[in-house]
């Protein structure tokens, strides 16, 4: 099974939550958006996107709903739940702390 090996562990969750915080989306759209916002830096195979989404759903951070798309096809749309929003805040905080800490370390080394 392909894994998001280049992705810092746990970051995928944060990214997905953030993307869905803006607007409910289906899986295909999420995969496009991921590529679009991260360029080729973050490589998430489509095969591992869905297990990640299902995991978030099972954690009750996102919820799924079947809707018709603009081209009249049924698709599964994910949206953020209230616990999901809290989780996003928490993970974003964590990320910021981590990023700050790491950039500090990097700076110290340069100096």
């Amino acid at each position, binding site marked *: *099974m*392909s894994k998001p090996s280049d992705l810092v562990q746990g970051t995928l969750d944060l990214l997905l939550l953030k993307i869905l915080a803006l607007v409910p989306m*289906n*899986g*295909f759209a999420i*995969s496009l958006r991921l590529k679009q916002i991260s360029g080729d830096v973050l490589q998430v*195979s*489509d*095969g*591992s996107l*869905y*297990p990640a989404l*299902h*995991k978030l*759903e*099972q954690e*009750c951070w996102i*919820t799924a709903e*079947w809707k018709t798309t603009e081209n009249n*096809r*049924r*698709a*599964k749309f994910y949206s953020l*739940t209230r*616990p999901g929003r809290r989780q996003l805040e928490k993970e974003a905080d964590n990320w910021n702390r981590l990023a700050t800490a790491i950039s500090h370390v990097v700076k110290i080394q340069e100096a």
Partner: protein
Amino acid sequence: MPPKHWFYVVPLRLRSLLRWGQVEEELDEELLYHLEQKTQANLAKGMTAEEARRFALREFGGIEQSKEACRDKRKASFLRDIAQDVRYGLRMLRKAPGFASVAILTLGLGIGANTAIFSFADVVIRRPISLPQLDRLVGVSEYVPATEDSGISAGNFQDIQSECQNFAELAAYQGRNGVLTGRAEPEVLEGVATTVNFFSTIGVEPVLGRSFLPEEGLLGRNHVLVLSNALWRRLGADASVLGRKISLDGDEYVVVGVMPPKFAFPLGKVSFWTPLAMGAAERESRTDLNLHTVGLLKPSATLEQARSEVATVWDGLLKEYPQGNAGRIMQVTSLRDHVVLDYNRQFALLLLGVAGFVLLIACANVANLQLARAAGRQREVAVRTAVGASRSRITRQFLVESFLLASLGGILGIFLAQWGVHILRATLPAQVEDICDLNNLGVNSAAIVFTLLMTLLAGLVSGIAPAWQQGLRDPQTALKQGEGRVLGSRSHRLRSVFVVSEVALTLALLVGAGLMIRSFWSLAHADRSLDPDALLTLHINLPEVRYAEPAKAKAFSAEMLLRLQAFPGVQSAAVVSGLPYSYYDDEVGVHVTGRTEVNPAELPTAMLEAASPDYFRTLRMTMKQGRGFDDRDDTGTQPVAIVSESMANRLWPNQNSLGRRIRLGGANSEEITVVGVVSDVRHEIFDRVFRSIIYRPARQAPGLSMDFVLRSGGAPQELIAGTRLALRAIDPNVAVENAETMTHKIEEQTSGLRYVASLMAVFGTVALVLSMIGIYGVIAHLVNERTQEIGIRVVLGAKPGNVLGMVMKSGLRLLASGVVIGIAFSMALARVISNLVYGVSAWDFRAFAGVTLLLTGVALAASYIPARRALRVDPAAALRCG
């Protein structure tokens, strides 16, 4: 999951559990949608339809793996997967009916044996009696450490009854047998004399009629009786029995009640209950431990509170009556512990442990079967792994299959246990029947729970190794290899470990059984010189009312002896107060004249026997010093006694015992002169040392309870009918009890031990067969695997002997390791047994050697069969296979 999520969680979980099909469809649809969109996008980039689709698929990665990963994320999928595993497992078992049936039967036997023994142990230990308030019932007793006597004196009982506040009721009882007359043949019935509050204490009332009235505890008013249900049925099961008179010991008793069916307390075959009425002297006694108690604690009271309260009262009694009470301990125990002897509990636990061994052996066998089968399933496992099953999933699959086998085995086990309990009950010796209420024996809910636990244990023990091993295997190599060709050395080692443990456990079991059989055998056959086959014994209990005068009892026994001696073929006949092996026990304190008065607790004690002149000759005892009894020793002449050799050595080591004077019981009793020393005799089968015994002439010390014994030249059983006639001629209202040979008496005492020994032998045999199958399986599998190698060896010139030796050697290696571990194991078990059973030595070379030989023979046979197959290997065919 934090509870605040329940709003989302509950519907989600329910959905993935209950609407699995829909969830699966949605997963398909979701991924399909993705691929379609991707394809569309690729088309838009200008690819051909074919290309667009292929690129979309490639970019996605493995679809099945992705799906499986999604499924794994569903929390409820666990249950679902188990269900799937179970279905799959059942299918696999159906495909291998031979394997499945052997495994299920093996586990069924193991589990069934455990359930049966558990049901038995449960009755012996936990529910020996069925009384409604058993948990609140206690027994209060005085214990004399010096003589191991226990019971309570009437005086102490009454003081504790009136002074202790923690008892709602405290009742006393004593065994009293009675001769039922007025029917075709006088018959001795076991009965109990109880204080009038007995039935309200134990909480069981008659189903018919009433229990005793307070005034019926007075002398003269006490001729009423309550019948057991069984006796009532034998007397005609007539409700009009109430108020009818029954003749007991020549007295009339009015029937006032009938107890419910199956009620038996105290244990044994109690046929009737009468009120206990005591005379003034008896009521004041502080010495005779002739009563037993049963007390009902108040609902608010605990056993501890009752204990400390009784202890306080006892302190006072010790100060007030030091003469009778010194050297005694007052005990309060729960009735359950009061009834369950430590001995019985340990035997029950021993059997339970033995059954556990058998189950472990069964598990080892099934584990081996599964390991062998797993070798043939590598391809299947590899395919499953390739389509997305994770290692843990494969491991789980194997565990589930093992639990399936165990569950089916457990179900079979419950049926087998029911059958086993039936057999246990049918073969139970009468002695064991007296230790517990067998009406409670059966596979009950506790046994079912126990079976469930055993089943889980069996599933785990037999499945953990095969499952763990499957999880370790690399699917890639498995796929490349041919079906069941190569197994890692780990598997061999595992299988060998199982067989070695089987052999070790079997050895321990067989040694245990061997030790028990040998000890029971030596106990039962120790008294060759006694020639017990030629001895006929009868017990007669004269009713107190009509034989209160010693002269009457004396006349009775003289008359009876005369008649017995006249029987054809009788070499000698004698009477004694208690024969060896008759559970007779009458200890007295011995005051030696001229010796300073010691603390009453340290007074030497001895068993008192009143014997007629021919007693020693009849039992083939020899006079060591002095003279035997003769007809001169009577009421008018000097009081004399003969002491046993051990007693003489204890009282007067290296000194002359003849002419010594002793007093028995109180210091003021009559002085008795020792006129002889007689050889020792083992009194009870489990005695570790010879008892001190003082013999008195029967004419100087007549009693009401007497054992007649006669040595016959012919078959002693043929005289039984004659003895009854003789007795009837003397007194038609007295019954003969226990007319039997001495051999029978001895066998009766060993019957419990023999029973446990034969159960252990049965378990040992089962274990032996199981480990034989185990060894056979491993060797046969080895030969299968090494067919090619053997072929090459044969081509290169190996002789049949070499091949045979090579295969047999693997078998013997397993055996040797098993035996070494097993001997260490059995020594530990032997220690347990030797503490439990007298006559078992922890290191009995013959038992160890015999069992090892037996096991070696079986192992050789089990390896020989597959070894023969190795000889028949056709080298050409074997090489082609490779």
